[in-house]
């Protein structure tokens, strides 16, 4: 493989080549770092590049192979993390100016450490909305992450750098976090696969929290097999995260080939019906799966409202000390929402948490007759950077909060969800949520894998977008 081919290869191809000795981890890492150096100035995905550590890690992998040591399943696979995950030796800035004053992390976040233990190579940290409070990664401190399909458009957020880096072929694998949609929205807008596992499945230790009631972490990739391999490598209990479940590892990658056999699938109606490209994307997936049955989640709009209130209150409380002493140092895109959140009365939060319990029971009832539910991931493809309003079904709505309209009512109760990307020629991508019952990530991944096998969904590394703004970056 040439340097560029090495840099753009998927994780499985890289690991196979490195394990077999067909490529060295150092060669893959050097090619990756070169591609990042070439393309990142246009994309603004990376806020830190850990070249020295990456090359040292890669050299160690190559030495292990030479010594006859069995290499891990992700041997030599470059990956990067949303900059709210600790990477030893660099500062975890969480998209903020305030946290940039903290000392460097003394250890890796658990999920990063587990990827590295599986042979993956950390190459850097990625741009995000400040403290994860946003759906667009229009960060005033570090600049907007740009959508690789069209540099004038947002990458989505809050894990926008993580999605854009994978979509642009800078890394085959990245990590993000999802509180209300922050993995699923950027996966949809950048046209790649993203997994938000069940709440409590993957450890959040070493990740900067936002709203602890809903904070999840998960991977992005350009193939379902890579997504599953990363997910499998990160599973397992962790005493450092009180939310992380005491469940054994339940590997998903080995069962992908089962596809959708014996799974009962339905389309979510009502709140999730969608219009335009969002509805068309769900229809494409449903048609491919032969699904016509429609079901409705009761009170989904109210669930979104409850998630909105709890998120604001928990976020406002988390950052209260800094809001009191240095509010002007917050990003103007998040500051006023954090300040307002700090003022939320307790009875709203407690009622929202009571509603959450009631709503969970209603949704779990749907899984008696269905294994998988389908819904749009976003109401539209990527808006322009700076765009305030979007038109949905003839009505103008505020673009930024509305991007989470279909994701928020589902992370509210922690359901596992895979986003699969669809893209018509000449159009911006948009994703569909493959939603499973709690702890059934493997079933959502099987459906995603079958859709990829049947060419219904695909995520290609984008070399250059169609907009004139990217001509200088080619």
């Amino acid at each position, binding site marked *: 493989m040439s340097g560029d081919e090495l840099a753009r290869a998927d994780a499985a191809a890289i690991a196979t080549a490195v394990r077999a000795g067909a490529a060295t981890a150092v060669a893959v890492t050097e090619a990756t770092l070169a591609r990042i150096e070439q393309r990142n100035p246009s994309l603004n995905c990376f806020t830190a590049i850990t070249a020295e550590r990456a090359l040292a890690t890669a050299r160690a992998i190559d030495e292990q192979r030479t010594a006859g040591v069995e290499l891990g399943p992700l041997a030599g696979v470059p990956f990067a993390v949303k900059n709210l995950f600790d990477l030893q030796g660099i500062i975890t800035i969480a998209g903020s100016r305030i946290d940039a004053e903290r000392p460097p992390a003394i250890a890796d976040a658990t999920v990063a450490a587990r990827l590295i233990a599986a042979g993956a190579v950390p190459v850097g940290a990625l741009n995000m909305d400040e403290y994860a409070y946003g759906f667009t990664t229009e960060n005033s401190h570090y600049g907007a992450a740009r959508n690789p399909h069209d540099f004038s458009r947002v990458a989505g957020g809050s894990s926008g750098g993580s999605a854009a880096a994978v979509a642009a072929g800078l890394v085959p694998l990245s990590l993000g976090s999802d509180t209300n949609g922050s993995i699923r929205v950027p996966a949809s807008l950048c046209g790649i696969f993203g997994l938000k596992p069940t709440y409590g499945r993957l450890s959040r230790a070493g990740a900067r929290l936002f709203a602890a009631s809903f904070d999840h972490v998960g991977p992005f990739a350009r193939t379902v097999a890579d997504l599953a391999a990363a997910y499998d490598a990160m599973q397992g209990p962790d005493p450092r995260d009180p939310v992380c479940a005491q469940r054994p590892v339940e590997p998903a990658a080995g069962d992908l080939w089962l596809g959708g056999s014996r799974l009962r699938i339905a389309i979510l109606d009502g709140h999730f019906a969608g219009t335009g490209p969002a509805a068309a994307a769900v229809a494409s997936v449903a048609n491919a799966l032969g699904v016509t049955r429609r079901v409705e989640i009761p009170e989904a709009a109210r669930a979104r409202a409850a998630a909105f209130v709890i998120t604001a209150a928990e976020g406002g409380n988390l950052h209260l000390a800094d809001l009191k002493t240095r*509010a002007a140092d917050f990003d103007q895109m998040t*500051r006023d929402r954090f300040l307002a959140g*700090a*003022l939320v*009365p307790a009875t*709203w939060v407690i009622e929202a948490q*009571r509603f959450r*319990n*009631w709503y969970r029971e209603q949704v779990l009832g749907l899984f008696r007759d269905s294994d998988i539910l389908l819904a749009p991931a976003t109401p539209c493809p990527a808006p322009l950077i700076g765009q305030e309003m979007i038109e949905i079904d003839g009505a103008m709505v505020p673009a930024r909060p509305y991007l989470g309209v279909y994701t928020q009512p589902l992370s509210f109760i922690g359901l596992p969800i895979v986003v699969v990307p669809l893209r018509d020629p000449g159009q911006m991508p948009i994703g569909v949520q493959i939603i499973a019952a709690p702890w059934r990530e493997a079933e959502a991944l099987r459906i995603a894998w079958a859709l990829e096998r049947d060419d219904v969904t695909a995520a290609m590394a984008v070399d250059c977008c169609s907009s004139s703004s990217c001509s200088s970056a080619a």
Partner: protein
Amino acid sequence: MADQSFNTETYVDTAAALIGLPIAPAHRPGVVVNFERLAQMAALVMEFPLPDGVEPAPVFRP
């Protein structure tokens, strides 16, 4: 839903003073707008008739 006499600006000022949170004049209009948005969302939750026996979702295990 708050009653007709509720004034968001007064609430923001009073609640901020209660918790010792200074809000700069330049930030105050944005905070008020965002609190109004939160109040609209909260109203959707508060108006829903939950059965008495429903407990809050978080569970504490000593």
